[in-house]
């Protein structure tokens, strides 16, 4: 029987929720790294026991943790205690939390500033890792999405990281600006059919695609309209909150933007709006059903000023056609006095025969549906504010 492992990052630690395929009884492990903000936890598709964690603090900076045994034990990849931190010839060894922007001449474009909130230029400053995306093929290779926006890559299991500087070096970089949560690279999608192709999204720059393994990047924002920027149809500057795809159709992308739900059928070359009959098209996460590539889920939030569900009712919305026809899913969810938010990385699906949907709230609840969203139950109710939810289906 399949096992399901839900990896929950919160403002005060990480938690692992485990169950069998029935998803009725859950074991809760944690808090791991208590007191630290766990922005993201994600397992390797190649080796489910390999889990990477982004552990951050405004006081102490960025830490990368790794488990090789499914979350029972953890370590920081890199130099073991007591060993020299430099090689015999004086070169620094890998450091798992050393995320240095690449300003080497080889990149040719060592951009140093982006747009600040007041429109002035501001230097790039590393704050934290928002998202870790393990490779589909190699457990030692992981991509990291950072604030201020950049993508890093490790090929040694997290011991050392190197920026893929072509993204930050894109000619539009000086026009990127931070969203309310900072200038974060929060979404990384790997094309399972083309190892050279990746998609990323940045608040507030937009979505980008590489077709050469991360050397060069192209903005893919045609069709997006953002009335809060001077040119609503600009090439960059859009506050994309999350992007998603189904692995069987990597050219079909879905997007939750600051406002608007969008769809692209040509790898991001053009987007069109599918907000349809949603009560509001503001929100953060968007996910695709594991077995139905046209079925997508969002959680509408009242507005960008209020950040809670409309009418105090927590409702997931499902579109079975990936278009503008949405149905509310509320069975088991609070339908009065609910004023939580669901953040962009806090929703995920499993790949059990009956697809499970999961999301975490800023109120500390993690809800699960074992029947594609028709019925929901809380796995836990009182965790710290949930930052991220990922799911591993272990066969």
């Amino acid at each position, binding site marked *: 029987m399949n096992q399901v492992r839900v990896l929950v990052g919160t403002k005060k630690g990480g938690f692992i929720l485990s169950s069998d395929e029935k998803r009725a009884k859950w074991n809760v492990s944690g808090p791991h*790294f*208590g*007191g*630290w903000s766990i922005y993201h936890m994600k397992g390797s598709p190649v080796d489910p026991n390999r889990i990477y964690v982004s552990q951050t*603090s*405004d*006081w*102490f*900076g*960025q*830490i990368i943790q790794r488990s090789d045994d499914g979350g029972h034990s953890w370590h*920081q990849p*890199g*130099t*073991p*205690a*007591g*060993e*020299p*931190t430099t090689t015999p010839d004086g070169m620094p060894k890998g*450091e798992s*939390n*050393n995320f*240095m922007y690449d300003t080497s001449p080889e990149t040719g474009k060592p951009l140093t500033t982006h747009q600040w909130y007041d429109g002035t230029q501001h230097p790039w400053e590393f704050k934290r890792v928002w998202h870790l995306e393990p490779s589909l093929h190699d457990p030692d290779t992981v991509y990291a999405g950072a604030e201020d926006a950049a993508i890093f890559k490790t090929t040694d299991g997290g011991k050392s990281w190197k920026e893929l500087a072509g993204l930050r070096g894109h000619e539009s970089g000086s026009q990127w600006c931070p969203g309310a949560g900072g200038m974060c690279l929060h979404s990384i999608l790997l094309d399972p059919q083309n190892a050279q192709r990746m998609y990323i999204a940045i608040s507030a720059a937009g979505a980008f695609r590489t077709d050469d393994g991360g050397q060069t990047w192209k903005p893919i924002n045609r069709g997006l309209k953002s009335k809060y920027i001077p040119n609503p149809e600009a090439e960059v500057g859009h506050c994309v909150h999350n992007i998603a795809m189904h692995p069987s159709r990597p050219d079909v992308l879905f997007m939750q933007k600051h406002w608007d739900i969008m769809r692209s059928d040509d790898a991001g070359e053009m987007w069109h709006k599918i907000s349809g009959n949603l009560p509001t098209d503001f929100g953060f996460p968007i996910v695709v059903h594991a077995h139905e590539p046209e079925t997508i889920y969002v959680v509408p939030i009242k507005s960008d000023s209020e950040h809670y569900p409309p009418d105090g009712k927590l409702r997931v919305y499902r579109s079975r056609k990936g278009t503008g026809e949405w149905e509310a899913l509320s069975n088991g969810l609070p339908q009065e006095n609910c004023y939580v938010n669901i953040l962009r990385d806090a929703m995920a699906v499993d790949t059990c025969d009956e697809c499970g949907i999961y999301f975490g709230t800023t109120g500390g609840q993690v809800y699960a549906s074992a029947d594609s969203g028709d019925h929901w139950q809380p796995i836990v109710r009182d965790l710290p504010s949930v930052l991220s939810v990922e799911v591993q289906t272990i066969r």
Partner: protein
Amino acid sequence: MIRIVLPYHLRTLAQVQGEVHLEMEGKVTIAAVLDALEQQYPMLRGTIRHHQSKKRRAFLRFFACEEDYSQQPPETILPEKISSGQEPFLIVGALAGG
């Protein structure tokens, strides 16, 4: 022997309880103490000072013998009571909020 008191979260990160003790040779400066600390506990690299610039992280402060050394240059020599182990070098998380 140099005695160092770390804030709670760095103690858990370094997997130590209580004070950290370091053996050092040469001048006992702020930078030398931090170098020795990071040598023995590499998981702390980047958590007290930035990797490249070696600047103290903004929300951490350094104290020795009831004096604030947070703004002192890294090459500042610490008091004899620190180098002799009579007093600990304190790395303190700055209070914010609450």
